[in-house]
Each structure stands twice: as structure tokens, then as C-alpha cells.
């Protein structure tokens, strides 16, 4: 299945998006999720503004109030703009009959504490609002992924999708909080500028010439560094990926005698990384120094030029000292902005990826008015001229017609690419197809809600997917409808009970995702138990190819017999003994029906099924010869050379279980 086969551009899902342009639409969309928490977030923003205003008042006390009116009294000070702080100090000192200095200090302490409280409230409301917003976004993203059809997961790597739920949402958190905390720094910037202008426009102008210089330098540095940081990151991840693969394949490495060669290759990556790191620090150290130096230069200007103004009595000494404090308050955000832009661009790419996944318009057609199924289906299945092709590729099923009566078992056999697994995929409605092709109890499956249908059609895949959790949870899949008793009953019926009880904690034994603590045979039994617990009327089963040892093999055969008993079954069979258990056999080849009948009928027919039978059970060398001869004669079915797993891993890619 090539990517183009579906006519969708799935590569978009794998591309590393990295955006350089601002995309306001993204923010607007993000706000939709923030809406329920707008009061919290709005409060947070209001608190930061008030907090900023308070923080700007504190230098006024240190400068104009304490220095100009108390320590070195200067009448000029009182006429200047000071938010009434001088008056407040006098009032306080009169009221409690304390020295003006003590009164000023009390004001200072009061302002400090209220600033701190405002900031605490701001940060807590911000975290709370942002976290809830993103939890909701994450949930919606997950829900949309949960309902994406099989065709989507056929083409998209799970890892790529997953990072959207984890890393990308985290990045948006940084964006949301970064935005507000940036506001927390920029609001004082403007308040401070306003104050400075009120005192001396001239000095303010002189000092503020630093800001554009800082901004330009920051910008240039960011541009220069973006590439360097990217190379550092790339070299680091190449290094780590190499190590990881080497560790995962360590047996192969050692068996191939590659240790020295790999040490050389890793060494080259390690050197490259060191080179990039060396390059990066050169810039970083210079920029870091440059940033701290800006404030110093501004202070030098204030002393030289502002000092002159003090001498000429244009400003007071206290105001001069206040300028010193303000200038450090103003230069700090300039560096932060540069940093914030990195976050911003990263978050934008993340946002793009998240919304791409949410918007991805690929879903199963659900009937508008789904047919209500009766309590219990009869279990008849009919394929009527069923045909199916994956988009932009050759048909995989061509006019397949057969009917199975309730309780009948049909074995489906045929070479790779015959379309066997497509039969399962269609019956469980994992793909969309035309109406009037497939019927269950005479009802077109397209008229049944997919969730409802899948509860009636149990699917057992070749690979049993173990979720980490207890054995019991793996049988019931946490479905509240499946009681503990029911799950245990199912396990007993399919012969799984014995081995489960032998596990350290019985049904409560924790299983690891990859199921290393269960043998393949045990996994198959659990798969049987899982499907039996939900008691479907129709069973579709893809038999595993792997062979197991004698005892397990027998137990599985027996379990399969009990599981299928009394149910309508379609079994993609690989073992002839399984085929012999079935009532009829359907032979598919390249999407068309070749043979349909009982074992005896098909043997008598001496067709494809006969060849297969001979191949597997007579002398193998002779059978291979027979197969080759047949192949030459008919140029027909390709029994050999491809495994069933190549494509028929029923609902997906290979290599899910295995190890």
C-alpha cells in the first residue's frame, strides 16, 4: 500500500512543521478552548497589570520620597509627579507621630507585600486557567484521534501522532503562560517609561536610545543562533538515536563484529556534536555579556548626562537614582522577548500540528438513522457482489458473493493479496464502501452504526495487543458491561484459566505492553477470551501463523473449537486442521472467488485448494515441485514467496506483537 494509494497526502503528517511567520488564526482558535476559563485568565491578566503598576511605585519611594524629601531635602521634589506618595508619607508620619523615614519605609513594605500578593494570585490563576484550557484541548485532540478510521492509521506513524498529544500541547502551555508573563514584564516597561518621561524627557530620550540597539542586537543574535541551535539539536539527536539503535541491536552489532566500526561512527557524531556545541557557546557567551552590559552603559549615560541635569537643577538626585532602577526594569524584557520568539515559533508549529490532527477530515460514514438491531442477531452474513478498492489502486475485491447461514463456519484461504483481510475489514466496517454489498441478518451493514455493528461482529486479529494492566483488564478492556465473573467465565471456556491462575497474582497479574511475560500461545488464548467475553453473534478471526509447541497448540485448537461453537464464523485459516473444522471453504485469489465448497468437494475438484493441501501435507520436496509446476502451468496463484503477513496483517501494519 503506497501512500498515494488513498489519495491523501499523509506525508503532511510526517513533515516537521516549523513556521517563521505569525499566524493569528491559530491564536484565535486557541482562544476557543480558553473561553470557558476566560474569567480566570482575564483576572490573571488584570492582576499582572495592577502588579506592574505597584512595582513601578517602589523606586519612587526609594528615590524622590526618601532621598529628595527626607535625606537631602529639595523643594523641587514635591512639585514633581509622584503619585501622591510624598503626601502619603507625610500623612502617615503625622498620623502615628513617627519619623518621615519610618513612614516611608512602612509604605515601601506595604507596596512590596501587595506586589507580591498580586503576583502570586496572578501566577496561580494563570497556571490554573492555562492548564485547564490545554487539558480540554488535549482531550478533544485525543477524542478526534480515537475516532479516526483504520485508513488513517494505515498511513500515519503512531509516534508522530502521539507527540502531538504530548509535546505539542506542552509547547502551547509555554506559549499561553509565556504570553502573559511577557505582559507581566512589558506592562512595567511602559509604566516606567511614562514615569521617566514625566521627570525628564531629555534624559529619557538619551537612555532609551539603548532600547533599539538592544532590540536590533537581540534580533541579529536570534537569527544567527537559530541555525546554530538547530544544528546543535540535530547533532545531539543524531548522536542519541545512534546510541539507542546500537543498544537495541547490540546482539547484531556484536555478532557482526561491528564494535570498532560503530565506535568510529559514533565518534564522528560525537565530534560533530562537540563542534556544534563549541560554536554555539561562542555566540551565547558574547550575547549574554552584551545583554548585561546594556544596563551598565545606560547607567553610565545617566550618571554623566543625568548628573549634569542634577547640577543644573533640572532633575533631583532622587529622580536620578530612580532612573537607574527603571532602566534595569526596562532592559530585562528586551532579552526576554527574543527568547519568547523562539517559544512562539515552536508553539505555532505545535498549534498547527494539533489543529491539523483535529481537522483531519477522514471519518467513517455513519448512517443518519441507524437501524436498531434486535437483542440477539440470527447471525447470517451475506456478501453480494462485494467489490472494493483502496483509493487510487487496483481493486482488492471483485464481485465476491457468498452467504453464510447462522452458526456456519467459513474458512477463507488464498495467497497474499487475495483480499482475505479485506473481507474482515469490510464486515467490521473499518472502511467506507458502497451500499448493498454486505448484509448481516439481511440488513445492509452501512445502515448499522459502526459501534453497534462491532459489538456484534467480534474480530480476533493475528496479533493480540496487550495493554498494560491486569489480565482481567486485558480481557474486559475496562468495559463496565463485562463483569469479573463474565471475564473469568470466558477465560475458562477458552482454556486460559489454568495458566492465568498459575501467574503470580492470577487475574490481577500486571501485564507489560509488549507482553514479554506471556508466551504467544497464552496471548492467543487471551485474545479468544477477550472476544468471547463480549459474546458477539458473528466472529471474524485471523489465525496466527506462528507455530507453538505441542501442548499449547492442542489447547489452542480446542479453545478455537469452543469459541466458534454455535457462532457464525469467518476464519482466515493458515492451518489445515483449522480449515477442516470449518463447514465450507472459500478460496480467494487476487480479489476474486476461485472456489467455494466443503473440503471433500474441493479436494475432488483438484483445483487450488487441492494443491495447497498437497503442498502442506505430503512430502514437502515433492510438494514444492508440484507447486512450481502448477505455477508454470497456470501462471496463476502465487502460493510461495510471500507470506500472509506481507499485507494481510488484517487491520494494520506488521510487527505489532512478535518479540
Amino acid at each position, binding site marked *: 500500500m503506497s501512500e498515494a494509494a488513498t489519495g491523501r497526502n499523509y506525508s503532511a503528517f510526517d513533515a516537521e512543521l516549523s513556521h517563521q511567520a505569525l499566524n493569528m488564526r491559530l491564536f484565535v482558535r486557541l482562544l476557543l478552548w480558553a473561553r470557558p476559563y476566560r474569567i480566570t485568565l482575564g483576572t490573571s491578566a488584570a492582576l499582572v497589570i495592577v502588579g506592574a503598576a505597584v512595582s513601578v511605585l517602589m523606586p519612587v519611594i526609594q528615590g524622590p520620597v526618601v532621598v529628595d524629601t527626607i535625606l537631602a531635602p529639595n523643594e523641587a521634589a514635591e512639585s514633581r509627579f509622584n503619585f501622591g506618595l510624598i503626601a502619603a508619607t507625610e500623612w502617615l508620619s503625622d498620623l502615628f507621630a513617627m519619623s518621615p523615614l519610618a513612614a516611608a519605609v512602612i509604605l515601601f513594605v506595604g507596596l512590596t507585600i501587595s506586589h507580591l500578593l498580586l503576583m502570586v494570585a496572578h501566577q496561580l490563576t494563570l497556571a490554573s486557567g492555562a492548564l485547564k484550557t490545554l487539558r480540554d484541548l488535549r482531550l478533544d485532540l485525543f477524542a478526534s484521534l480515537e475516532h479516526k478510521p483504520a485508513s488513517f492509521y494505515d498511513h500515519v506513524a503512531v509516534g508522530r501522532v502521539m507527540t502531538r498529544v504530548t509535546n505539542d500541547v506542552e509547547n502551547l502551555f509555554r506559549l499561553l503562560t509565556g504570553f502573559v508573563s511577557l505582559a507581566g514584564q512589558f506592562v512595567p516597561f511602559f509604566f516606567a517609561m511614562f514615569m521617566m518621561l514625566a521627570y525628564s524627557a531629555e534624559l529619557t530620550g538619551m537612555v532609551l536610545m539603548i532600547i533599539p540597539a538592544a532590540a536590533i542586537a537581540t534580533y541579529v543574535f536570534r537569527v544567527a543562533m537559530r541555525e546554530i541551535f538547530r544544528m546543535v539539536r540535530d547533532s545531539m539527536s543524531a548522536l542519541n538515536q545512534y546510541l539507542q539503535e546500537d543498544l537495541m541491536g547490540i546482539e547484531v552489532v556484536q555478532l557482526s563484529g561491528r564494535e570498532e566500526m560503530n565506535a568510529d561512527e559514533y*565518534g564522528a557524531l560525537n565530534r560533530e556534536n562537540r563542534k556544534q556545541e563549541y560554536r554555539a557557546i561562542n555566540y551565547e557567551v558574547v550575547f549574554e555579556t552584551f545583554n548585561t552590559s546594556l544596563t551598565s552603559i545606560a547607567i553610565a549615560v545617566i550618571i554623566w548626562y543625568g548628573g549634569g541635569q542634577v547640577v543644573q537643577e533640572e532633575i533631583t538626585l532622587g529622580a536620578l537614582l530612580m532612573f537607574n532602577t527603571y532602566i534595569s526594569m526596562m532592559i530585562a524584557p528586551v532579552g526576554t522577548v527574543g527568547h519568547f520568539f523562539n517559544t512562539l515559533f515552536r508553539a505555532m508549529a505545535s498549534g498547527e500540528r494539533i489543529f491539523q490532527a483535529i481537522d483531519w477530515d477522514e471519518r467513517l460514514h455513519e448512517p443518519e438513522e441507524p437501524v436498531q438491531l434486535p437483542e440477539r442477531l440470527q447471525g447470517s452474513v451475506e456478501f453480494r457482489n462485494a467489490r472494493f478498492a483502496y483509493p487510487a489502486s487496483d481493486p482488492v475485491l471483485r464481485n465476491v458473493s457468498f452467504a453464510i447461514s447462522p452458526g456456519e463456519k467459513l474458512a477463507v484461504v488464498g495467497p497474499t493479496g487475495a483480499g482475505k483481510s479485506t473481507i474482515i475489514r469490510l464486515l467490521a466496517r473499518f472502511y467506507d464502501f458502497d451500499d448493498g454489498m454486505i448484509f448481516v441478518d439481511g440488513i445492509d451493514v452501512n445502515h448499522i452504526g459502526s459501534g453497534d455493528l462491532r459489538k456484534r461482529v467480534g474480530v480476533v486479529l493475528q496479533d493480540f*495487543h496487550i495493554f498494560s494492566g491486569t489480565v482481567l483488564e486485558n480481557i474486559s478492556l475496562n468495559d463496565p458491561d463485562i463483569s469479573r465473573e463474565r471475564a473469568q467465565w470466558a477465560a475458562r471456556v477458552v482454556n486460559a484459566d489454568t495458566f492465568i491462575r498459575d501467574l503470580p497474582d492470577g487475574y490481577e497479574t500486571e501485564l507489560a505492553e509488549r507482553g514479554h511475560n506471556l508466551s504467544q500461545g497464552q496471548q492467543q488464548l487471551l485474545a479468544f477470551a477477550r472476544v468471547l467475553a463480549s459474546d458477539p453473534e458473528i466472529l471474524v478471526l485471523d489465525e496466527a501463523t506462528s507455530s507453538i509447541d505441542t501442548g499449547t497448540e492442542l489447547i489452542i485448537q480446542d479453545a478455537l473449537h469452543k469459541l466458534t*461453537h454455535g457462532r457464525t464464523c469467518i476464519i482466515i485459516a493458515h492451518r489445515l486442521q483449522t480449515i477442516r473444522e470449518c463447514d465450507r471453504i472459500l478460496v480467494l485469489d487476487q480479489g476474486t472467488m476461485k472456489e467455494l465448497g466443503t473440503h471433500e468437494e474441493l479436494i475432488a475438484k483438484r483445483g487450488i485448494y487441492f494443491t495447497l493441501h498437497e503442498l502442506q501435507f505430503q512430502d514437502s520436496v515433492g510438494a514444492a515441485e508440484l507447486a512450481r509446476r502448477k505455477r508454470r502451468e497456470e501462471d496463476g496463484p502465487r502460493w510461495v514467496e510471500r507470506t500472509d503477513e506481507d499485507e494481510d496483517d488484517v487491520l494494520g501494519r506488521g510487527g505489532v506483537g512478535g518479540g
Partner: protein
Amino acid sequence: MHGGGGGRWGGSVVGAPQRERGSFQHLGHLKRLMSYVRRYAVVLVVGTVGLAIARLALYLMPWAQKLAVDSLADPAAEPYLLIPALMILGVVASQFIIYVPARRVLRRISIAAAYDLRKRFFNVVQYQGPNFFNKFGTGDLMSRAVNDISMVRMVVSFGAVNIVMFVFSVIAALWFMLVMSPALTFWVVLPLPFVAVIGFMMARGMFPFFRERQEALATLTSFTQENLNGIRTIQAMAQENQEIDRFRRASTRYAQKFYRAERYQVIVGVSMTLLTMISPVVILLYGGFLVLDGELTIGSFNAFFGYLILITSQVQSIGWSLSMFTSAAAATQRIFEVLDYPPEVVDVAEAQLPPDINGRLEFRNFSYRHPGAARPTIDGINLHVDAGETVALLGRIGSGKSTILKAAVRLIDTPRGSVFLDGRDICEVPIRRLREAVTMVPQDPFLFSAPLKENLTYDKPDRGEEAILEAVDAAGLTETLGRLVNGLDTVVGERGTTLSGGEKQRSTLARGLIRRADVLLLDDCFSSVDTETEEQILGGLQRMRSGKTTLLISHRVSTARHANRIYVIDNGRVLESGTHEELLAQGGYYADLEAVQSSQDRDRARRGQLLRQLDGSRGELPPLAPTGSDVA
């Protein structure tokens, strides 16, 4: 096969085992780093001295301001402005001239130390055996190589230097302050030790919150990963809404933990700020009175604020530096745990190259017990494969078959005197040479994320196309190759085109065949391949392995029957041995297996009998429940 994780290294490693929290007891481990830093000792000292000088220059800034302010505050004095302003510019220049190069060399040392550690780490890890890899999983090792080494790098880069600079800065600032006013200095500095201690305690108090947050994130991540890996099962069982509910709980829990960590951090931040605000208040109040009493100049009063800021930033970061030290010490310990691990399988001193190899492999009374296992995996096995023979091993999972193969290539620490190649103890053959002569294809079909061609010629990349195609053909991979868009240059493995289990298995088989080794060991290499393809591969094996020794593990009679001899292994012993016909005649395990794996009618009766025997030994099977009925 291996999940893929979050895919991004550098941050936290999902699934990494719980990391031990650093403590002071670990600090001793930092000594181990000395050998990596010592070679840079001179540069380290020069760099630190440079930083100290640059910092001293920085302390001239408040002084320069003091001089200017004093001249302005005293109406009688001549304004003294230009020189202080130039002094400040001089300080700026000194930062560029002294600080930049000093900081740069110090950071280069940390990069170089990380480089050296990584290099050694890789070399040590590559030569380790199974015990090592059982002890340290891949995720664990990655976490040590990524997170711990970067932690160590941080401590080399900032930690040690920060502490030296802290002591130096505090002394320098104290000196300047004492010169201005000893009394005020005492009261201003008094709260600072508390700031440092509380800062340190709070930084460490953060750990549990942070860990809980990380754990909640890890839970969320692994839940998502597992869910998406099993999405087909979930959809097939119509459990989507169920899963969304569980996800809601997990993500809400994460949001709560995140919020708690955030709240702690905010409270810590506020408490620290409150503490650090005591000193400026003291300056304002007590310093103010001193000015009013004429004991302190306004310039000094102002300079106190300047020095206070310089000290406070140091004091605040010292707590961070100290807690980093303890974490780095724990990280160092974790790194050296790996670096100190002795390799299990080593060449013995008298190892020498044998002459041409015929390929006779023999196990003489070979026993092996996995470390920590209660009973031996292999219990006195005697078996031999004559030159040019093909021999099959059969047996249950866990019977010890794989261990036998691994012993022949020393993937385990094979005891001396138990495995012989052409009559020579394999422990006396250099490992490299042994693994050239004896090639093993492991059970797990692992492919590197590299072009198929590189995977097939992994041992010797300069093999010609012809040799590759021959092996591809013999392994039954030709058709797969034709399907791959870029042929042999198609990237496979985790980050490449996904191959099915069977295709992977055949690729690894081709990788083994291509080496045309004297002895080939196949560990269950057909399990994901269907019977028809297996026939084809067996034909290919015959072509490429005629006259050479092959020892293979299989679960299928159809594979084993072609072998010259078959050994049935059970519980680490040889249970049965002989040719296909001989074993069938014996009527033991092999005959049972044959019966189970065929569908001939004559075997039906026998299967039923076997099943009954099995039931007897495993307890009663439950009676068949009527279909569809529920159990009360």
C-alpha cells in the same frame, strides 16, 4: 518493535526507571569526575581567575555611582561625573575582554568532558554481555547517557565555578560594604544566610512535586502511546468512548499535579522574595537614619543597594548550585555504575587464530546457569554437528535452545571446555574470529534504521551487489525487494519503511546468509513465515549452505524433518535425538508434535488422546458453556 517513545531525546526519557534523588551522601561520587576534568586543570584555574577578575571589576560599578552621587549630594563639592561614567564603561570593556574568554574556556571544558564521557560510555556498553543488558535496559542506558551526562556537564560548567565565585563575590562585596559602614553591613547581611538555606531547602522540596508531575506526564504519555498502538483493537471492540474517559482522568490528573508543582514554585518564589526584601528595607530604614545622623553619605546609602543586588543574586543561586551538586553526584554515580561494569565475555590471554575451519561444532557436557536463576538452563548437554551437516533443535519455549546457540558465539559467558569448534575450545578463539566463523541469526528480527543494503551487509559494508542479491534470493526476499520503491536503498527499520514481521525475519536471515560462514546458527528464523515460503527458503538454504554446517532451532516438524539429525531439548537436557524417521518411530515428543501439526485423519485419534492427557495434568477443563449464556 520498540515503541518509539516520545521520539525526542534531550528532555526526560519516558519509561526510564525512577531516578534516585540526589543527596549529600552521593557527593563523594563527584571525585570520579576528576579524571575527566584534571587534564583541563590549567585552563580551569586560568578561567576561574579570569571570572574572578571580571567580577571584581563589576563591583567597581556601585562604587563609581557612589562617587558621582556623593559629589552631587554635597552642594559644596565639584560635580564628579565624567570619571565615574568612564569607569563604568571600563567595566563593560573588561567584561568583553576578560569575562567572555574566561567563561568560554570554562564552558568548553564542560563540553569536552561530556564528549569524553560519552565516548567512553559507548565503548564500554558495546562490549557488554547479557547480564549487563538485563540489569540496564535500553531506556535506562539512554537515560544515563542523555540525562545524566548532561547533568554532569552542567555541574562541570556551572556548579563548581559558581561555588568558587560565590565565596569570592561575597567576600569582595562585604569588603566594599564594610569600608562604607560596618554597622549597616552587619544588619544588611544578617538575613542572607537564611535566604541561602531556605532557598536550598525549597529547591529540594520541589523534587517530590516535580517528580509527581513527571510521573503523571509519563502515565499520560504511555497511556496515549499504548492506546494508539492498540487503536485497531479498541475500535474493533468499540471501546473508544471508554478510552476517552480514561484519558480524561489521566489528563486531569496531570493538570492537577502540574498545578500543584506550579503552586509550590510560586510559593517558594514569593517566600524567597520576601526574605530577600528584608535587606533593602534595612538599608532604607537603618541606612536612612545613618544618613540623617551624618554617619553615611547618600552615595554610600545608594551603593548599598547596588552591592546588595550583586550579593543577593549570588545567594539565591547558591541554593540552586548546591542542589545541582547533589543531583550531579547521583548522576555521576549512575554513569560510573555503567562504566565500572566489567565485561562478561573477554578474550583469554592465550587466544589465538585457528587455521582453516572445517565447521565441526561440539558441545561436551555443557551446563549453564543464568546468573540469579534457581536452576541451570542447560544441564549437561552433549551434542555435535559434523562439518557440513544440518542439525535441528526442537523443544518448548524456555527449554534452553537459544542458550545453546548463544554459547557457540559466546553471547553468553560460555564456560571453558564445553563448546568446541573443530576440536578447539571456542574460549581460546578470539571473539572476533569466532563470530566470523560462526554466524548466528538471532530470534528477534532487528533492523537498523538504514538502507536495506546497509542492513544486509552490516558486518562488511563493501560487499558487492551480486552477493547481496544471492542472499536476498535465498532468503525469499526477492519479491519484497521488488515492491520497495528504492530497492536496496530503501531505508528500513524504525524510522524507515515498515516491513512485516515475516519480511523482517527474512531480511535478518539474508544478513546471516550473506556472510557464508563456516557455521550458521538460526534461532527460530521462520516463525513469522508461512509454510509455503518456508519451503522456498529451505531450498535457498540448501543452495547456499551445501557442504557447510548449519544448526537451527525450529518449532515446526516441516522444517526439522530435512535435517541430518534432530535433537529435542527439554529442561536443558537432550530428550530425544535422531533422524525424522527414527524419532517418529520412537513415538515421543517429536512424534506428538508431528501429529499435532498435521491434519491427517489418522492423527485425529492421537490428538484427542494427547489433549486428554494434557487435561489430566493441568486440571479439568470447564464444561462447554452454552453459547451466549451469561454466568450469574
